[in-house]
């Protein structure tokens, strides 16, 4: 017992000793050794549980000068201790008070470095806790800095965001409510931390119409741009049932408020490719900056136009076509990503722009913009390649919406483009069905639509009524497309009398027979023969001993698929035959109809 006591007395005594020594010295006479001793003694007090005594020393008026110079060295052990103690512990309270005192008393420049260092050194689970603990003293210190304040504010925000970026963003409702690592809380704390600096920028802007000191404003802008990318681009931002105040929605709102206050909101929304990156002389750097900011600005558009944050500030007078044009580049940026959070934002943004427009109101000239051609192709990639089913379905719906908004010439051009570029039988089949619908509209409406009748249509049909590889085309793989084409042809033959020939199909009949119908016959015969032979072989093999001579195996998601049984193989082969039968029956029907009509005309003429 006495040994412990003497040890504890030592810790406080040592502190008192160094204090007394320094009290009589001039500030300029403080030596490195003194700093060291102070730090060691202070640290020992903290570690041994004598925070209360340390606090007393710090609060003592007489020690003001000493603390001012040497206090910042205590940050590291202080933070360690705060995390060591439990919430209710008195010692923790004392430590927090010490932290506050240090913020008030120490040299701002040095304390700033000490705090920043502490933030830089944390990682993993400690990050958010540490940042939230140190935000207030950091703010106090920054507000005291005179020169280089803007630079320091920028550095702090950049450092904090750098530390937060590796952390996973809570996505599901449960994850958000749990907020295991404290990221949700921390982000909102950071945005509160930034508020006095925003207010300062606002005040300066009001004072002089020519606001010269751009630096603080630029730093805040950088922070907002970073936040838009992380965590907002990755976060789930829809309203969630049962969560009153969604932390990321709140954060998004605050970021938009900051952008509005520093007068960057509207300029950013209208940011076009030409323009902003004048900072860099090196084009490569400029390109990198553009790329980084592209995602932030895309997220901003999503926030405004889909979640309606800050939409109050946006003038409502712009035409929907113009808004779509402005947003296409953002949509493109988002659709090129593969992460669900970003893809879904891109799709939502696209959808909301399209819903504002009337059908048939989008002029075909818009297709001259590169992104108006790129984006539907990106949509096709999503609907065919994305592993997430609801996104595939959604992108198909949006493609239809996009098609519906164009005028006739626009639809025509888009159909041609997609038929040539999609390389996917399902998509081609879908487009061909759209073509059929447009033809139907043209034939039934009173007005004459030149794009889906006559020579324009014939030119389009050249792309539709053909087999891509002639008779050798894989009929199974292209069955969607072939069926759609046959249905279209059947429709044309039924609907358009040879005497009218509005669609021009009768004039092109010879060509259609040569490029489509004949090769299809040949292909069908070949395929059927091939598959029937395969079935025969498989049945024969079954009679023999079941040999486990697998030539190749298939692995899906790390699991090896079991070899197909003979029954399964036969099933597949039979279903292929069934598809061929289907195609053949429609083909037969079409040819029958053609024959009937031609015969009718010939009878009429004779």
């Amino acid at each position: 017992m006495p040994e412990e006591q003497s040890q504890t007395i030592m810790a406080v005594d040592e502190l008192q000793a160094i204090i007394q020594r320094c009290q009589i010295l001039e500030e300029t006479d403080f030596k490195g050794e003194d700093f060291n001793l102070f730090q060691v003694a202070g640290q020992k007090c903290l570690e041994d549980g004598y925070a209360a005594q340390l606090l007393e020393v710090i609060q003592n008026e007489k020690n003001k000068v000493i603390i001012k110079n040497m206090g910042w060295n205590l940050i590291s052990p202080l933070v360690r201790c705060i995390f060591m103690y439990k919430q209710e512990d008195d010692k923790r309270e004392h430590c927090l008070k010490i932290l506050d005192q240090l913020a008030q008393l120490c040299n701002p420049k040095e304390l700033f470095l000490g705090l920043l260092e502490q933030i830089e050194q944390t990682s993993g689970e400690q990050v958010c806790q540490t940042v939230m603990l140190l935000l207030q003293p950091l703010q106090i210190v920054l507000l005291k800095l005179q020169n280089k304040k803007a630079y320091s504010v920028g550095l702090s925000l950049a450092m904090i965001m750098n530390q937060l970026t590796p952390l996973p963003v809570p996505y599901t409702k449960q994850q958000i409510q749990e907020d295991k690592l404290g990221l949700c809380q921390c982000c909102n704390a950071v945005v509160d931390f930034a508020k006095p600096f925003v207010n300062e920028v606002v005040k300066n802007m009001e004072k002089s119409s020519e606001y010269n000191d751009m630096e603080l404003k630029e730093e805040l802008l950088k922070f907002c741009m970073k936040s838009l990318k992380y965590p907002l681009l990755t976060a789930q931002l829809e309203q969630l049932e049962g969560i009153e105040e969604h932390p990321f929605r709140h954060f998004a709102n605050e970021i938009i408020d900051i952008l509005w206050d520093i007068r960057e909101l509207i300029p950013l929304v209208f940011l076009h490719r030409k323009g902003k990156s004048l900072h860099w002389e090196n084009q490569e750097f400029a390109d990198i900056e553009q790329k980084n900011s592209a995602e932030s600005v895309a997220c901003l558009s999503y926030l405004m136009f889909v979640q309606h944050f800050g939409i109050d500030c946006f003038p409502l007078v712009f035409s929907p076509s113009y808004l779509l044009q402005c947003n296409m580049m953002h949509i493109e940026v988002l659709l090129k990503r593969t992460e669900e959070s970003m893809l879904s934002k891109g799709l939502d943004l696209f959808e909301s722009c399209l819903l504002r427009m009337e059908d048939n109101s989008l002029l075909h000239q818009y297709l001259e913009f590169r992104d108006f051609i790129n984006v539907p192709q990106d949509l096709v990639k999503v609907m065919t390649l994305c592993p997430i089913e609801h996104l595939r379905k959604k992108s198909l719906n949006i493609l239809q919406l996009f098609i519906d908004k164009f005028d006739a010439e626009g639809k025509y051009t888009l159909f041609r483009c997609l038929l040539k570029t999609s390389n996917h039988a399902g998509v081609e089949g879908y487009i061909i069905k759209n073509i059929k619908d447009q033809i139907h509209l043209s034939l039934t409406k009173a007005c004459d639509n030149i794009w889906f009748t006559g020579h324009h249509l014939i030119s389009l049909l050249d792309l539709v009524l053909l087999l891509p590889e002639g008779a050798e085309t894989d009929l199974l793989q292209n069955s969607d497309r072939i069926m759609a084409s046959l249905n279209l042809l059947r429709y044309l033959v039924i609907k358009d009398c040879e005497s009218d020939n509005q669609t021009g199909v009768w004039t092109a009949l010879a060509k259609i027979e040569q490029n489509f119908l004949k090769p299809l016959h040949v292909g069908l015969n070949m395929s059927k023969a091939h598959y029937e032979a395969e079935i025969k072989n498989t049945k024969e093999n079954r009679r023999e001993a079941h040999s486990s001579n697998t030539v190749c195996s298939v692995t899906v998601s790390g699991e090896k698929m079991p070899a197909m049984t003979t029954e399964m193989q036969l099933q597949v082969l039979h279903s292929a035959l069934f598809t061929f039968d289907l195609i053949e029956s429609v083909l037969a029907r079409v040819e029958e109809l053609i024959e009937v009509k031609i015969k009718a005309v010939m009878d009429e003429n004779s």
Partner: protein
Amino acid sequence: MAATAGPAQPWSAEELRSEALPKKDIIKFLQEHAAQAVRAGRGGRCGGGPSAAHRRVLQFLAEHKLLGQVKNVAKTANKEQLIAAYTQLFHTQRFKGTDGAEKAAEKTKPAKAEEAKGKAAKAEEAVEEGPPKYTKSILKKGDKTNFPKKGDTVHCWYTGKLQDGTVFDTNIQTSSKKKKAAKPLSFKVGVGKVIRGWDEALLTMSKGEKAQLEIEPEWAYGKKGQPDAKYPSTVITHSVTWKCWVEYSALRAGT
């Protein structure tokens, strides 16, 4: 324009009670109508003077604890209270100040109508597509010599109102909420960047002109309206005649 009995109800009883309608939307609507009444009270020659209307309005808001910043009010007021205030507004037609403004407007109508008819007739001759789907009443004449051409950049101040008088869009700073030096909206006119009513009307306005435009849905937001507008029912479900006060501060040709 028949004198309506007061502001139209944007939400039905069910919509009010539903979770989907946030408190702050109701608060904003109520505060905005109060602001409307105050402005109307100031301009109208009928009814009590400006201070009386102002007092009545403040009384109403204070009674229902609606004074102050929207988000603070949202924290203290609960949904029931807001619904009560909203219902009372329409039952008692508290904001009688609006009648005064409407009566004053009706008096000036006949003279303006002639001008509008004249302009419409002229436009009819010029455009093959049909009559312009907007009417313009000049409130202040411009210099009558400088007119914008298609592709020119114009700068304007504007206020957009719904049929019930609610301001849904403006760049003129009236409230202290958005404290910042307002800038006029700049854009290239006549090339499809703005709604058609604006594109057509602005080409007929000379520098310095102040006009009121009533734009039919086809040349504004279409019959469907804006699907995501911050004024849900009025803009979405009803076709909107959009009133736009366009003022010119300066007219600069070129890029």
